[in-house]
C-alpha cells in the first residue's frame, strides 16, 4: 500500500529570467501524477542541492539556458557527495551543444531533455529511471 507519487524538484540555475519552459514541464509532470516542487528562478547549485535533499525528491531536474552546464553539474555532484546523497536521479533540461550533452552525462546526469523532447517521452523516461533505481 506504500504508494507515493514520484517527487521531482525543478530548479532553474543561471542568470536568464525565462521560466516558461520549466513551468510547462512542471504542469506536464503534475498531470502525469507526479509531485513537483518548484523553487523559482536564479538558484545556485548550493541552494538547489539543499532543497533537493530536504525535499528528498526522486528526481532533480535542472534547467539551464545560459550555457553554464559544464560548471554547474560538477558542483552539484560534488555537493551531493558531500551531503551523503547517492540515490538522487539528476536530469538536465534546456539548450546545449551535443558535446556538452555527452560531457554532462559522463558526470552523472541521467537524462538530458532538449527543447524538442515530447512530453510523453519525458514522462516515460523519468518513470523508467525511478523504476530502475528501485525502492528507497
Amino acid at each position, binding site marked *: 500500500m506504500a504508494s507515493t507519487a514520484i517527487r521531482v524538484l525543478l530548479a532553474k540555475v543561471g542568470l536568464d529570467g525565462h521560466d516558461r519552459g520549466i513551468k510547462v514541464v512542471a504542469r506536464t509532470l503534475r498531470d502525469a501524477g*507526479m509531485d*513537483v516542487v518548484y523553487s523559482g528562478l536564479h538558484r545556485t547549485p548550493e541552494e538547489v542541492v539543499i532543497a533537493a535533499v530536504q525535499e528528498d525528491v526522486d528526481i532533480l531536474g535542472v534547467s539551464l539556458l545560459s550555457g553554464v552546464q559544464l560548471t554547474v553539474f560538477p558542483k552539484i555532484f560534488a555537493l551531493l557527495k558531500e551531503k551523503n546523497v547517492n540515490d538522487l536521479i539528476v536530469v538536465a533540461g534546456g539548450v546545449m551543444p551535443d558535446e556538452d550533452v555527452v560531457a554532462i552525462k559522463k558526470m552523472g546526469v541521467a537524462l538530458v531533455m532538449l527543447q524538442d523532447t515530447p512530453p510523453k517521452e519525458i514522462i516515460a523516461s523519468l518513470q523508467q529511471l525511478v523504476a530502475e533505481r528501485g525502492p528507497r
Partner: protein
Amino acid sequence: MAAYVPSHELIEHIESGQTWAIARMITRAEAGATEAREAIGEIYRKAGRAHIIGITGVPGSGKSTLVNKLAEKLRQNGRTIAIVAIDPSSPYSGGSILGDRIRMADLVLDPGVFIRSMATRGAVGGMAHCALDVVDILDVAGFDTIIIETVGVGQDEVEIAHAAHTTVVVSAPGLGDEIQAIKAGILEIADIHVVSKCDRGDANRCLTDLKMMLKDGLGSSGIDHWHPPVIGISSYADEGFEALIEALAAHKDSSVNSQRREDIARFRLSKAAETLLLEEFRNFLDITASAQKLAARKGDPYSLALSLIEDFKNENT
C-alpha cells in the same frame, strides 16, 4: 545502486540532525510505508519538545511570505525552525505543483532551517495524520519550532488546528473572503488572527471588519482564558512581527498545557485508529456482490453496509 537503509537505522541519524536521514524518513511517513511504522512509533515516543504552529488562511493570503519572515526573525532569536508547507493535489491527476518554497528563498542556505513541501494527498486517513508523523520526525531531529503551512480550504485545516499547539489564521485585504471564512469555520480555529499585507491601503478596513466579527462572537476558540489577538502584519514592510512572536510565546505559555496535550493525543489516537481500521476494512472488503444487489434495488445502502461491517467484525473475532 544505493543501498536501502531500514527505517529503524535512520533514527540515530535523525537524532544527530542528518538532513538526508530526516528527509528520507519523512518520505516513508508520507507513503504510509508499513516498514516504517515501528520506527515512527519509536520517534513518537522520543518527540514532544517542539512548539508546533499551524498557519492557515485562504489561498494567496500571504502565508508563505509571512512564514519566510517569521522564520528569519525566530532564527535571529536563536531558534531552529522546520517548515512543512502543504499545497493541494490536483483532483484530476493526483499530482501537484508545490510552490511555497519560492517565497522562502531567503531561508534556504541557513542550516538551522529545514523546509519540506507536501501535497494534500498523502497517506490513507487524511493529511493531518501523516503531517503529524512528519512533525514528530522534525521534533526528534531537534528543531525548536515547527511551522505547518496549510491550504485555507476544506477540512484539513480544521484537523491541523486539532493537532498544532498554536493555530494562526491569516486574512488578507482585497480577497473579499470574510463570509467564506466564516462559512468554512476557519475563523473559529484561530488562536491568533493575522491580517496580512498591512502596507496596503485597504488593510485597515480588513482589520476593523475582523475585530467586529470577533466581537460579535463569530470566532471563539472555546478556551476561556485566551482571547485570540488580532495582529496586523506586513511582510513587505517588515511590520508586526514582534507582536506576532510575542503572541506565539504567550499562547504557548498559557495554553499549551497538559489538557491541550491530552486533546491532541485524543485526536491523534482516533485518527490512527481510523486509518488502521479503514485500511483493514478495505483489504478485507469485496463489495461486488453487495453493489450488484444495491444496483438492482434488492437492498438499501445502510443495511447492505451494515451487513458488510457485520461480516468484517465476525472475520476478526
